[in-house]
């Protein structure tokens, strides 16, 4: 196969210094972050095996799990659609848009607050606020919607940036990983009408301002789905910036798009996956906003679109294991190929950018879309760094060799002898020819030995003085390295027919090797220790913990010290009279202008510094710049799985620190779409 187009693209990436700096940066920070995060769960190897087995079971019995999951969702009032391919999925979204009540489209002057490039040519178009969804990239949804005059705005900071640049995301977790801040600065300057600044905090604030208006006026919120839990029907969506919560809760219609393979059996299994996904993806113990949605918000319609688009075909093929993927992007960060290429260089024969880059992409892109992407699998040294990084232990090197063996194009499984119709898929003809010759030699020992002699003679003639020869670049090998001369006498000649025979010394010299020591993590459960651990974890995430004997008084003192006159208050959290006495106004109604929200946590999690709350409380926990949480110290539980029984059929969110992003140059920025400050007042009085 001729793969010159791909090589050309590879060279473009390698020779782009800006891209290379960005990619080095991504690799180094992500790998370090991941290592640190995994250090906090010493049993991660066992978890990884468990996770693998769970995913294997789900894919094995997918129809069963889907049936349960769909039935639960329908019982919970969610409208479930199944799409067999991209066209059907897009059709379903368009249908939903068409059915929007006309009145909701009449927003008149909204457009004046929207940057010029985002305005639609249609007078009153439907506005869709979208959070990150790789499935939507896969089915090219934005393109299809825009063609119909529907405005779609990406709200994840990285996605927003690449949307403004009319690009595809270059990384499944950090879509703008290929860009430097100066490029974003120029982009925002030109598109958002703000003065040029390359201060990442200012850039983030500018995006927040534009996108906040989008959240508040959107007709439809569209999101992906990280996991579905079959047993309860929970739809789990994780975002750090808070945009996921915005689009799933604010608009009157929410569409969730999910690949049909994204299931886990139950909430316990979900807890396990959630201990692995954020650690692998971003080096976090838990994503800032981990939502578990069971039913639509009051007054909201929720659609769930479950997409096949080739997954059933992969499931019946030798690439089945690739469906275990939980889309964490760890294999991209670990991959030395990705580190050189970036996501935009994974191109098909038709020059289109593969929707999924990196090692997993080089398996599922040909798996989902066939021939067009098979050559991508040849760009790997099979070094195994991807498999090592994979939180569900997918044997990616094995799958890459299966794609190379042409098994992605033979859905029925292996052709004769494990080789599909396209054995050596993506291989250049010269390499293929050489290897087939080598097979002949390797199966005939006498010929093999003779060819070694011949090679030795030839290389000695070519390079009489040096043991190393310079080959021309076109040979591939000669591109960057010299080739050793074949040995004058091979090993087999040196030992000749001489019986190697028996050794001369006994075992007296042997020294026993020492065995590695096992470690047992210490355990401790007392409330004080849990509170301390909670405090340490949340503080490390720039959250604030205030331990108090009287939460109400301490919060009021805090509000007075900040000169706060009005707050959003979750009912029954603070004594209304105390607030009135302190001259602090409060409301129980959503008000986007309010700067401080006070909510109550159901429980806290010590090992991640998280609080669990009702997701519906977003007027307090997501919209304001400052979020205050009341938590009883006795309600602090050790870890995520301990809290899962409380979630059951509710809409719940685990909040782990203030809203954050690292989408520009991997630089941590606090306060994107959600609060900039999170204050948890831990009541240690143990009353009530």
């Amino acid at each position, binding site marked *: 196969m001729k793969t010159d187009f791909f090589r050309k693209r590879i060279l473009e990436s390698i020779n782009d210094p800006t891209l290379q700096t960005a990619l080095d940066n991504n690799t180094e920070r992500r790998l370090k972050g991941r290592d640190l995060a995994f250090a906090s769960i010493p049993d991660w190897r066992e978890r990884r095996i468990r996770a693998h087995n769970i995913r294997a079971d789900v894919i094995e019995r997918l129809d069963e799990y889907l049936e349960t999951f769909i039935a639960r969702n329908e019982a919970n009032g969610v409208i479930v659609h199944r799409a067999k391919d991209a066209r059907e999925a897009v059709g379903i979204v368009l249908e939903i848009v068409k059915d929007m009540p006309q009145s909701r489209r009449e927003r008149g002057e909204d457009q004046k607050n929207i940057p010029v490039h985002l305005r639609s040519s249609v007078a009153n178009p439907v506005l869709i606020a979208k959070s990150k969804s790789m499935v939507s990239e896969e089915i090219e949804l934005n393109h299809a919607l825009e063609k119909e005059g529907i405005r779609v705005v990406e709200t994840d900071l990285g996605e927003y940036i690449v949307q403004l640049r009319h690009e595809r995301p270059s990384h499944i977790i950090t879509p703008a990983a290929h860009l430097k801040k100066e490029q974003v600065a120029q982009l925002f300057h030109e598109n958002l009408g703000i003065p040029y600044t390359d201060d990442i905090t200012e850039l983030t604030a500018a995006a927040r301002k534009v996108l906040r208006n989008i959240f508040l006026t959107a007709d439809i919120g569209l999101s992906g789905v990280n996991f579905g839990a079959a047993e309860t029907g929970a739809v789990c969506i994780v975002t750090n910036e808070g945009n996921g919560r915005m689009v799933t809760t604010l608009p009157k219609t929410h569409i969730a798009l999910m690949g049909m393979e994204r299931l886990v059996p139950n909430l316990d299994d979900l807890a396990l996956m959630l201990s692995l996904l954020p650690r692998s993806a971003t080096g976090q113990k838990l994503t800032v906003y981990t939502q578990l949605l069971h039913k639509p918000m009051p007054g909201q319609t929720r659609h769930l679109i479950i997409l096949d688009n080739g997954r059933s075909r992969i499931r019946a093929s030798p690439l089945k294991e690739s469906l275990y993927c939980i889309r964490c992007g760890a294999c991209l960060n670990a991959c030395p190929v990705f580190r050189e290429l970036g996501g935009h260089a994974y191109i098909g024969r038709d020059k289109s950018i593969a929707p999924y880059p990196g090692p997993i992409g080089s398996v599922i892109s040909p798996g989902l879309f066939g021939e067009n992407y098979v050559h991508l699998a040849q760009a790997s040294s099979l070094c195994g760094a991807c498999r090592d990084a994979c939180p569900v232990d997918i044997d990616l090197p094995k799958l890459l060799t299966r794609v190379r063996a042409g098994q992605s194009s033979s859905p029925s499984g292996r052709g004769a002898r494990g080789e599909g119709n396209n*054995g050596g*898929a993506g291989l250049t003809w010269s390499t293929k020819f050489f290897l087939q010759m080598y097979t002949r030699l390797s199966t005939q020992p006498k010929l093999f030995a003779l060819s070694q002699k011949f090679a030795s003679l030839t290389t000695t003639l070519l390079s009489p003085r040096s043991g190393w020869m310079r080959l021309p670049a076109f040979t591939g090998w000669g591109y960057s390295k010299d080739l050793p001369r074949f040995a004058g006498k091979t090993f087999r000649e040196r030992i000749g027919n001489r019986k190697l025979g028996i050794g001369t010394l006994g075992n007296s010299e042997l*020294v026993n090797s020492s065995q590695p020591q096992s470690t047992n993590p210490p355990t401790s459960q007392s409330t004080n220790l849990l509170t301390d651990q909670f405090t340490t974890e949340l503080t490390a995430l720039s959250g604030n913990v205030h331990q108090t004997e009287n939460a109400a008084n301490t919060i009021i003192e805090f509000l007075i010290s900040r000169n706060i006159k009005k707050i959003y208050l979750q009912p029954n959290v603070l004594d209304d009279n105390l607030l009135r006495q302190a001259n602090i106004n409060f409301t129980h109604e959503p008000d986007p202008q309010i700067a401080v929200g006070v909510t109550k946590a159901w429980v806290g999690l010590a090992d991640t510094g998280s609080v669990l709350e009702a997701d519906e409380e977003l007027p307090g926990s997501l919209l304001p710049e400052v979020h205050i949480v009341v938590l009883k110290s006795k309600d602090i539980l050790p870890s995520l799985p301990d809290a899962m029984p409380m979630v059951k059929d509710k809409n719940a969110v685990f909040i782990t620190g203030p809203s954050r992003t690292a989408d520009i140059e991997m630089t941590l920025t606090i306060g994107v779409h959600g609060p900039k400050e999170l204050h948890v007042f831990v009541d240690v009085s143990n009353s009530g």
Partner: protein
Amino acid sequence: MPYNGLMPAVQLFITCLTDSFFPQTGEAVVSILHRLGMDVDFPPDQTCCGQPQFNAGLRRDARAVAEHTIKVFERPPRSLKTLEVLPDIVTPSGSCAHHFRHNYLELFEGDSVWYPRAKALADRTYEFTEYLVDKLGVTDLGAKWDGALTYHPSCHTLRGINVGRQPRALLANVHGATLVDLPNAEECCGFGGVMSVEHPELSAEWLKRKISNLEATQSPTLVVTDAGCLMHIMGGLKRQGKKQRVIHIAEVLNHR
């Protein structure tokens, strides 16, 4: 001296790269095994394990070579006629050991004739340092070395067959040597078999990084467990006119 049924024996799979390019590595392996009292059998019809074909996706070819290799190693050594069980196979390459242990099983999956034969071969195959440390319980071979040594864990040794601590334990007991850690040691050097010719541009970038990491150690000698990495990194050093050299661990351990 005929085999007396008391001394343990091994079969040596030398690998095509070591055989053709680095015979001195093979001699070091034999010499060490001899010193440890092992009888070494070298089945003369062995060639290549078929990994290049397998990795390239040419499974029909890979199978042909694998079948040849399995047959060759099923023949009992002359000295072992009295034994019913075939001896362990030792190979100075993590990559070829990985190919025997994992890829052969993949290759013959579902084949009622060849799978059991491949499995039997896989089960008695050991990478050289793994065999010394895990099977023989040896970590000190009395080797002597003057100067700094830096270890590069080859991908298939480390991640393919999970042999990481064994080579390090052996190197830690080389008398007189100073071990200097290689920065980002676990990154691939860019060999990857066919990838180094199929995608030389990519391979070149990783090689550059590996060499600059080696330079950062100021160590003159890089130790590897695989002839593939050896010829790749050494080839890069030669091309760039560098003075450092790459050496197989067996030669270090055999240095006295």
